[in-house]
């Protein structure tokens, strides 16, 4: 075995998986996981832990794995994370834990994400449950949103003894884990639902179909329903459009709509009664993880699929693994290209899109080189669907209905990074509602910090 390289992980063949919604990555088995675990050097000063937003004791759990002690490894992870099966699948490890791994200097870093996934999946199969408290402390906390920030905050608070209720706007718990990330990347019944069951087994209650800001207000929860503190983890929800001609044509969707139909409503399956457009040729505009998810969904629903992105491959904000998987599956990348106009036929359906070629100029505020149009380089792509994946902005529902809760110019709730404290007493916030669209693990980190902040606040009260 080459100690400089990761033990390769088994995946569904690209040709086969392009036609189904089953999970792409099959994960390690016992032999593979234990062989990979041997590559960990158990550093005295583990840089991987610093790279993890929730500071999992990574060498600690890998040491347990070396001893074939999956339950022990699960308990080590459980001290820091409530959602290991999810993080092992969707964290950008290459820029976090694995990005810092000493092994990565001369060879490939330890495959920490795949090991975490192995521990979580195996522990679940063995029926291991996270450790809850025997008796609650009688203090009630409300958590708004059941996405990664809310679940983490609720799980941590429950472990400290608080009585936690999560309020979820949709009919199913999980937030972006359920409506946003597709089945082939994060299985819903087998993984997400089980992780949520684990959080519930800690004593957390979840009330679905409750839009805070509409079905109840924060003041209402605190004054009339007895919640002493509130955590807002409502995510970033409002999709952006480009404002180009033709965007109202039939066949133009936000990635949020397309993915929500397929993921939350399961429109990809014949059992579901929610419709989804099965395009012949789809153009996805954008280069983030959501764009990759939308593109790979359209592909699986039968479309020839193109990504249109205005910068070059180097600037693609999506995880490298996602771009790699998308390419393997046959998605065509039109880089340094930007849409100008969408064309509709006489019945109002999309028939094509005019794009213009771009080149990179001077660096902009984000530090990336700014894309500039090349005059006269317009060209036409025939297509019957256009999916806009340009990012999202926070939903104003909560900030506009809560007196004394400060939001910034972009509509994000203002909260201090260390404890999640907002401008309103007893109200904490974290995740995309504060930062704008980011990652699952950063939201979890914020949920964790806020749980600590809430505990300190209520203990001092």
């Amino acid at each position, binding site marked *: 075995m080459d100690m400089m390289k990761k033990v390769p992980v088994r995946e569904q063949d690209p040709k086969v998986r392009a036609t189904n919604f089953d999970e792409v990555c099959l994960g390690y088995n016992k032999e593979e996981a234990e062989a990979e675990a041997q590559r960990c050097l158990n550093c005295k000063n583990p840089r991987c832990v610093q790279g993890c937003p929730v500071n999992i004791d990574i060498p600690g759990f890998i040491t347990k794995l070396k001893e074939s002690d999956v339950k022990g490894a699960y308990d080590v992870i459980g001290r820091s994370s409530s959602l290991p099966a999810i993080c092992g699948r969707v964290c950008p490890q290459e820029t976090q834990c694995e990005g810092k791994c000493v092994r990565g200097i001369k060879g490939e870093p330890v495959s920490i994400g795949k090991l975490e996934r192995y521990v979580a999946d195996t522990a679940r199969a063995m029926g291991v449950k996270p450790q809850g408290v025997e008796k609650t402390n009688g203090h009630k906390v409300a958590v708004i949103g059941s996405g990664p920030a809310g679940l983490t905050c609720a799980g941590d608070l429950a472990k400290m003894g608080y009585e936690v209720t999560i309020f979820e*706007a949709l*009919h199913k718990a999980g937030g972006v884990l359920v*409506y946003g990330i597709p089945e082939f990347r994060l299985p819903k019944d087998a993984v997400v639902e089980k992780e949520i069951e684990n959080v519930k087994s800690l004593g957390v209650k979840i009330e679905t179909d409750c*839009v805070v800001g*509409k*079905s109840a207000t924060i003041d209402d929860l605190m004054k009339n329903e007895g919640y002493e503190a509130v955590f807002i983890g409502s995510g970033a929800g409002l999709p952006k459009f480009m404002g180009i001609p033709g965007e*109202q044509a039939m066949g133009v969707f936000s990635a949020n709509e397309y993915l929500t139909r397929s993921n939350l*409503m399961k429109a990809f399956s014949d059992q579901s*009664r929610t419709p989804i457009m099965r395009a012949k040729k789809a153009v996805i505009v954008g280069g983030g993880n959501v764009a990759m998810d939308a593109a790979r969904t359209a592909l699986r629903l039968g479309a020839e699929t193109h990504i249109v992105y205005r910068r070059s491959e180097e600037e693609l904000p999506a995880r490298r693994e996602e771009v790699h998987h998308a390419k393997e599956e046959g998605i065509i990348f039109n880089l340094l290209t930007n849409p100008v106009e969408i064309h509709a036929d006489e019945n*109002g359906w999309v028939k094509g899109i005019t794009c213009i070629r771009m080149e990179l100029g001077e660096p902009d505020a984000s530090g990336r080189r700014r894309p500039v149009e090349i005059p006269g380089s317009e060209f036409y792509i025939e297509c019957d669907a256009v999916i806009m994946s340009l990012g999202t902005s926070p939903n104003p529902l909560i900030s506009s209905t809560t007196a004394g809760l400060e939001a910034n110019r972009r509509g994000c709730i203002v909260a201090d990074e260390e404890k999640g404290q907002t401008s309103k007493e007893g109200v904490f916030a974290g995740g995309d509602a504060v930062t704008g669209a980011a990652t699952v693990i950063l939201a979890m980190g914020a949920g964790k910090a806020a749980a600590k902040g809430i505990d300190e606040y209520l203990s001092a009260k």
Partner: protein
Amino acid sequence: MFKITKKENLAPNIYLMDVEAPRIAKYALPGQFLIVRVDEEGERIPLTICDYDSEKGLVQIVFQVIGGDTYRMSSLEVGDSFADMVGPLGKPSDLTEMPLEELKKMKICFIAGGVGTAPVYCQLKWLKNQGVEVDCIQGARTKDIIILEKEMSEVSNLHICTDDGSYGIHGNVCVALQKLWDEGKRFDRVIAIGPMIMMKFVCQLTKQLGVETIVSMNPIMVDGTGMCGACRLMVGGKVKFACVDGPEFDGHQVDFAQAMQRMKLYATEEGRLYLRAKEGDTHHGGCGNCGN
């Protein structure tokens, strides 16, 4: 939760239900809507709230069978429950935010078409309770499908019209509005709720008459909280989301042609699902929807 406590068949294919939904009932105001899901495989269906009782924790919905899921809803009985019901969503009518003095001086004419009658009732009842008197034109194709006539006449000066002249004024709601106008009635505001085509023609007329007009838009939706953008429409040249910016808009600013076109997006699929639910395996084509 979401148990049905009352069910009435108002007209062929039109049903009224009272449903236990205390959180919605507590905060609902006229003009807002809710989303209902009949069972675990069901679609999320937006419906305008028709009445609410915050003390009993009940909300009232009225719906017409147009697709597979509305057909399934119609087969539920008192004692059965919906899988989900969430709301109140959208902004309440701006009438609810006006000073009462101003409201009492206003001359308002509501125009209700088809199942749009039920959400109009919600507004009329609220205004009546505030002591505000208003006119209402209620239109239907024919006499048999006029709904809630008694209730509507209790809370407004009701003018009924039918396309075929079988009851009330002979003609559609525009004919009726023009008739009132010609008789010397004047209005500061028209509020039209009904099929998009009706709202479009009402707006064309009120533009000529120079009367401010509010319409309640009911485009295709998924989540109803601003997340998906499926319900977007052009109002005054700007993209608006019906679920969070509406559902009520200035009718003279709405691009109806585009909004009506967007409604067709899943039209055939809805028809297919309806027949699949209703006829099951016995359906053998000829409906114009299924492709057989």
